């Protein structure tokens, strides 16, 4: 059959080539994306939803989202592009699941750290402007040092565990916790000054 050799060791494809495959409407794009980023995207989803089956569905939806988005999109950084899609899908699933029970995920833990000013499981208020909040958070993140930017994104955007962040930055766990406390305090002030109810 000649197919068995295909199952042996395989190298990841360059992102540019994967994006090209999407643009050529070649389903191999999905396969290559999955081969290269499955584990990474799974971890992003798992941090949020903490359920293997949900994660697999999030990943499938991510691939579908990527397939539908490219074209027209041509991301500069494919991994970031996929991260964003996975996070959106996982967060949607998270809040949906949250209606039924508490989700024992890292996202729940990271949100609990912010309970001074982020609390309540209800739906979004009608007057809420997500884009404005997005701009406020973006400006805040830019005002941080490189290291704190990384910690903020790790902890609150992709909900990485403290240990993972400490390992990435070669810091102690307590040092990461201290940094997070500083970030949290500054964030609270910014949100307060921007008129968000605390």
């Amino acid at each position, binding site marked *: *059959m000649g197919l068995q050799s295909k199952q042996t060791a395989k190298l990841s494809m360059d992102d*540019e080539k994967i994006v090209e495959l999407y643009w050529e409407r070649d*389903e191999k794009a999905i396969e290559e994306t999955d081969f290269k980023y499955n584990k990474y995207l799974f971890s992003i989803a798992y941090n949020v939803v903490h359920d293997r089956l949900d994660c697999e569905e999030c990943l499938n939806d991510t691939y579908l989202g*990527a397939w539908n988005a490219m074209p027209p999109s041509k*991301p*500069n950084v494919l991994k970031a592009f996929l991260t964003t899609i996975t996070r959106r899908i996982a967060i949607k699933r998270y809040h949906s699941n949250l209606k039924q029970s508490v989700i024992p995920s890292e996202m729940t833990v990271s949100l609990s750290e912010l309970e001074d000013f982020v609390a*309540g499981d209800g739906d979004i208020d009608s007057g809420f402007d997500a884009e404005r909040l997005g701009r406020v958070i973006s400006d805040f993140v830019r005002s941080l040092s490189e290291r704190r*930017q990384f910690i903020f994104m*790790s902890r609150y955007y992709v909900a990485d565990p403290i240990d993972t962040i400490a390992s990435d930055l070669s810091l102690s766990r307590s040092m990461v916790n201290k940094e997070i406390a500083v970030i949290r305090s500054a964030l609270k002030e910014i949100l307060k000054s921007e008129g968000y109810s605390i």
Partner: protein
Amino acid sequence: MKKKEWNEGLNHIDPDLVEKYVEQKDRLRQKNKKPKSVWLRFGAIAACFLLIVSAVIVVPMLREDDSGVIPGPGTTDDNNRPNIPIVNVQVPSSAPQYYGSEATGDGGTAAEINTEGVSVIARLIAVLPDTYTFYDDWRQEEFHLLKMETVKLLKGKNVTDTFYYIVPERFMTDFTIFDKFVIVDMGQYGYEHSVLYNKTQSCAERLDIVLLGYLNTYFYFMGENFMAFDSDGSFDGRLWGANKYWASSTGWPNNIMGQPNKYLNGYTIAQAEQDFYSDDGYRSVNVLNSVSGEAKEALEYIQSFENGLYIQRGDGFKTSHYPSVQLNFRRYMEGFATNESGMIYAGSVSWSKARFSKEDEEKLPNLPSANESVKTALNNGLVTPPHFNNQEKLRNTTSGVFGWYAKTENGVVGIVRVTWCFCTEKYQFHYDDAYYIIEYGSDECKAIDRDALLELLGDYEATYIYTGEYNEYGKDFIRVYY
């Protein structure tokens, strides 16, 4: 601030920050493992090169997209937009109606097919000679239809005895050399008697039996859910080796089927039957069987519509993880959606104001022809976005045509919506749309403003019609990735 709001705000942070984070993370991981590879540098250079190439190639294309409205022949509306004369298309009015023997046994047959994957052992009856596309698929991918006979049901209930299976052009091979197929996780495309565009014949064509494909709303064919077996019941690898597309699809089983290798070494149809047999995943059946009172009456009413005129939407049944007792139904007529719908929730039923009568059914406008005529006009540049007037260099990325029947105070009209999508380099999407209506007996598809259309519909459901504000970007500014 609520958790949902916080997360939604985070969803809107600047994409540059996400890119920076991902790059930081990769850099740190590399640093913690080994020295930076030269390939990363090469990648950066390649990315720069791609950017330059994009600037050289794409920017002139963007300019080309700024072309204005090309005046068309015939009458115009008050805003000088051309109305579109109808060119009649061939739509068989007496297509043979075929149903599986179990189809009438339980309400919501199409619903079950639509909402959970169906797995079967099947035999090929025929390969239809023509190629087809969906009307509302902007990619306009060509596909063929395999007419299949259900030999044995492995997962799902009430599957029709015969069905069409979608195979994209590039996956076409000689399917007649195989004895049987195991097809896993199929879903229904559209609804019973879908109207497709027959590209070979250049006309609309209504299908006579249910149309199935890989379980997904979108065109997402992956060959690995389709396995061939020879007359001895052994796995026949010639299908997966038929061409590079089939071959590349076999990597996917890692994700959905476990171990791909076993399918290549002495795998049999008997094993496949065991692997893919499932008696669960059909919670909708239980829901349907357990209802009573007005909910039961509603289901019986829906069931009485032969040929799937009512179908259940996927909402609430998307996955087996999310049980829902809410059943949403929409009525389809002559292959097109309508603004008639029903919803069953917790034993109670609510119907839309729009309810099509027998008289309405006999006086349906020629929507298939209108749909096709608008599509042709769009392809010829006679239809352009009415609101989008932004001077930024945005790419017109997609445009699609979608038609449906709507009941109004003055009878039934056919509505055809044209949708455009524009995209910035930052993946910011902007949309615009235009609407056309056709009345019973009319040979012209009239351009109509959205507001006038909403006024025409009055209290009747404005299904599929955008009701927000328009601006220079077309519809409301939308900043999403997909």
